[in-house]
């Protein structure tokens, strides 16, 4: 099929960069709005400070004891204007969803609504201490409880553990619930089955929970091989960890049959919820027999990921696993009041409200979880409502299929023939000219002004490119992306030599990762100058 630009954005004639003059060198190394920025250690001084605090009175006696510092720590300081400029300049060397489409498959980079930010900064949420008397924080507990209710209803599950700090922490929480449940019935099982296409966190988590990991193969059409899995099930298998929709962007059609088989063999089903955005409001994992699933609030529910975190990974649990969830937890009782249950109150609370069945496996983190993310996620859910969230899944899936069908004539799409994809479209490097790689295509896409898709994941497809546009892209934005993607795919297929040196226009060209790993330089080791002595000289060649 041909380029789909029947409406919306139309590509201009491609820019011929060979005709663009390089221009003269600049004294500063800057190029107009492309500004270089030194390290704080090179521009700051140990005497400068950007805050107004009284000077230290060295004559005053202290009660610091034997380890009082003799000298102040050696840390560079900047005034406020220097600080704001330093970080503003750095920020401009970053790609972000606010700048354009960010098609990282399985990462779900969608628009981050600013209302969420405003709400999270309300003093009753931002400025309360985790150990304040519970009588002074009923609203905070209600947020946790209200969000819990949403997560339970959206997933069709029984309970939710809110304290895990991120997706992988949630995976660990779910696996520990499974292990605690098995141990409670005196059933020592040793093996966890994980599909080949799983996120790396899945096997790492299973190993951390004390299990031996065995892989299960995939079928030709990119899904878990049900028969192979059934053949492996037995009294030693504690759980199966499955991602659904899976990392190939496909719905596991046999999910219910998988769950039934695992349950029949006495095991539990862990579902990696990283891809929940594809099905929110249209499918409830609880209806598919899932026992535990973490939900990445920063993916499906739009909390900002801030350059790699924080995340937040609540875990929804089935009736069988609910009693084992970690402390502390918030729970609304028959009187309508939300209680915070900690070590102190856990036993009495469980006797009174759960007939003693709560048997928490313990505590995973110091406090209640990522409250700042809870307020944002709840704000997002209330904004969309049940109807809007269903539309989210539909538009996310529609956008991904639009990309899939707009590219499949140019790029190898290994599972396209078997039907629609879910929220992400998967391609491989099969049709590239010899010597051209997925990395070359990704770097060329940077020059077109895009963050590349997820590359080399999942491992089951050679040179994988996993594209997740999300529902917050307009058709015009997709059309422009597709035009750029088609352009770089054609060049990779044709073997255009210049691609191997891309990117040309980014703040940095390809970085030497081998050197970084071989001779790790992980901290600035030079001195920090006293005030008035500029240290920012002779950096040119570095």
């Amino acid at each position, binding site marked *: 099929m041909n380029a789909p630009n029947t409406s919306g954005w139309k590509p201009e004639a491609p820019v011929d960069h060979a005709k663009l003059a390089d221009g003269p060198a600049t004294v500063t190394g800057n190029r107009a709005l492309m500004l270089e920025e030194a390290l704080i250690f090179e521009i700051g001084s140990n005497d400068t400070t*950007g805050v107004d*605090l009284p000077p230290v009175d060295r004559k005053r006696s202290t009660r610091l004891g034997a380890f009082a510092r003799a000298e102040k720590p050696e840390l560079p300081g900047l005034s406020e204007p220097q600080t704001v400029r330093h970080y503003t300049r750095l920020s401009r060397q970053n790609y*972000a969803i606010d700048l354009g489409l960010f098609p990282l498959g399985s990462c779900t980079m969608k628009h981050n609504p600013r209302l969420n930010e405003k709400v999270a900064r309300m003093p009753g949420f931002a400025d309360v201490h985790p*150990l304040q008397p519970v009588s002074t924080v009923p609203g905070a507990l209600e947020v946790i409880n209200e969000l819990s209710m949403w997560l339970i209803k959206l997933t069709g599950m029984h309970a939710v553990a809110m304290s895990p700090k991120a997706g*992988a922490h949630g995976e660990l929480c779910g696996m520990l619930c499974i292990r605690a449940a098995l141990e409670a019935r005196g059933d020592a099982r040793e093996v966890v089955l994980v599909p080949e296409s799983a996120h790396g966190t899945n096997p790492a988590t299973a190993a951390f929970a004390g299990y031996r990991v065995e892989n299960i193969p995939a079928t030709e059409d990119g899904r878990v091989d049900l028969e192979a899995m059934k053949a492996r099930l037995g009294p030693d298998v504690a759980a199966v960890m499955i991602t659904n929709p899976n990392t190939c962007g496909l719905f596991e059609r046999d999910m219910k049959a998988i769950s039934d088989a695992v349950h029949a063999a006495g095991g539990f089903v862990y579902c990696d919820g990283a891809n929940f955005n594809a099905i929110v409001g249209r499918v409830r994992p609880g209806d598919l027999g899932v026992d535990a699933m973490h939900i990445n609030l920063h993916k499906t529910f739009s909390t900002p990921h801030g350059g790699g*975190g924080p995340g937040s990974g609540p875990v929804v649990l089935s009736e069988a696993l609910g009693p084992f969830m970690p402390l502390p937890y918030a729970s609304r009782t028959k009187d309508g009041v939300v209680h915070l249950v900690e070590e102190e109150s856990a036993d009495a609370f469980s006797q009174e409200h759960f007939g003693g069945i709560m048997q928490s496996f313990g505590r995973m983190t*110091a406090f209640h979880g990522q409250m*700042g993310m809870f307020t944002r996620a709840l704000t997002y859910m209330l904004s969309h409502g049940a109807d809007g969230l269903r539309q989210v899944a539909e538009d996310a*899936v529609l956008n991904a299929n639009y990309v899939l069908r707009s590219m499949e004539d140019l790029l190898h799409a290994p599972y396209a023939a078997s039907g629609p994809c879910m929220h992400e479209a998967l391609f491989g490097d099969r049709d590239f000219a010899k010597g051209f790689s997925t990395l070359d295509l990704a770097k060329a896409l940077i020059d077109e002004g895009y963050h590349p898709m997820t590359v080399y994941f999942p491992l089951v497809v050679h040179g994988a490119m996993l594209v997740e546009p999300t529902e917050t892209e307009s058709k015009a934005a997709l059309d422009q992306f597709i035009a750029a993607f088609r352009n770089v795919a054609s060049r990779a297929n044709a073997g255009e030599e210049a691609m191997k040196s891309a990117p040309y226009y980014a703040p940095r060209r390809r970085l030497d990762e081998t050197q970084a790993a071989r001779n790790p330089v992980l901290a600035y080791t030079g001195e920090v100058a006293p005030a008035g002595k500029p240290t920012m000289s002779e950096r040119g060649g570095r």
Partner: protein
Amino acid sequence: MRYLPLTDTDRAAMLETIGAPDINALFSDVPQEARLDGPIHDLPMHASEMAVERHMRTLSKKNLAAADAPFFLGAGAYRHHVPASVDHIIQRGEFLTAYTPYQPEIAQGTLQMLFEFQSQVARLYGCAVANASMYDGSTACWEAITMAGRVTKKARAVLSCGLHPHYVEVARTMAKFTGDAIVSAAPDLDAGCAEDALIAEIDDETSCVVVQYPDILGRIPDIRKIAAALEGSKALLIVVNTEPVALGALEAPGNLGADIVVGEGQAIGVGLQFGGPYLGLFAVTNQKLVRQMPGRLCGETVDADGKRGFVLTLSTREQHIRREKATSNICTNSGLCALAFSVHMTLLGGEGLERLAMENHRLACIAADRLVEISGVSVLNDVFFNEFTVVLDRDAREVVRVLAEKGVLAGVSLGRLFPAEDALANGLLVAVTETTSEEDIETMATALEEILA
């Protein structure tokens, strides 16, 4: 649906391009019995920005914010003044809405910031290398214990009685599943830090000794003495710090003999937020230990033109490469909180951090002196930074509750932290920072006098 750009016209055109009759056709792989035919019942429908804001504000106003009361809580989470520019910078979209820096050519902003952050943390802790942050202090502490297990090939961790009880609980919980032995005891209401009892627990099977500095009661343990006792032993010394501002006034743990220093970075730049997101800090004094470290690391390198640049490095330790053999299952760091920490620390500098620390200490001394005047109150600590323990003549939980009714957030009762330890029930942990006014101290002291009278 203000966050959804597609129009019905767009949707129809796109379905035509795809060759699907309707949206349901794209969900054809979902088994019929699992498909929902409409919005989930019992959940509200979409709402305007104004309506959502109103609802959330109602919930927010039910809480007593720290700024609205004399406030003395600490115990691992501290209220400090965060300069306005910190929150401005972390809300820049290029930082706020970036993902993990997988493509370094267009993520130099995040990467350089992480390199600077690692360098700041390493200096603050007196260490060679710090990682790019972890979930929080309690999980960083557990990761340090497991790392010590990998390094020493031993599995018996000896925890100081001064370690935050929630950190102990996290370690105990995780150890149940990994099979590690955790040795720990509750603290005594005793001015000393019981280094001798801790040292007596060290044996040939010990992988690490974990000491909090300053500790949960606000005491300042003798790290050098414990380090000296570990001479000749394979066991690693892990020092935990939950109040980084203290290190503006106290010697860095890495300079006192620690092998691994971990902690909670929330106090600088991040804010209370009812417990999260916070910022786990993790550093080692010997660069040789780097390859056993968990978490992301950012390193310096050059690009194809020879310009300095930064990349995530040593990822062969991590789960996406090593899968079940990884050093940790952690995938996320706490990047935005690390940015807040780094910006605040840059505004402070060595000079500002020292001033901040000494201002905290000055006010804490005033508070301790005022409280000890009250009949029925004694102060446990001879030495402390900005937090100390007072011992009342009755259960502190009840006193905290009554003070809260009077609008005073008086501190954290040891009964809340150590519910099983009746001997600690009269203890109250009081934290004082630069945000505490002398008037706040007087308000609290007067209220306490009334209750204890």
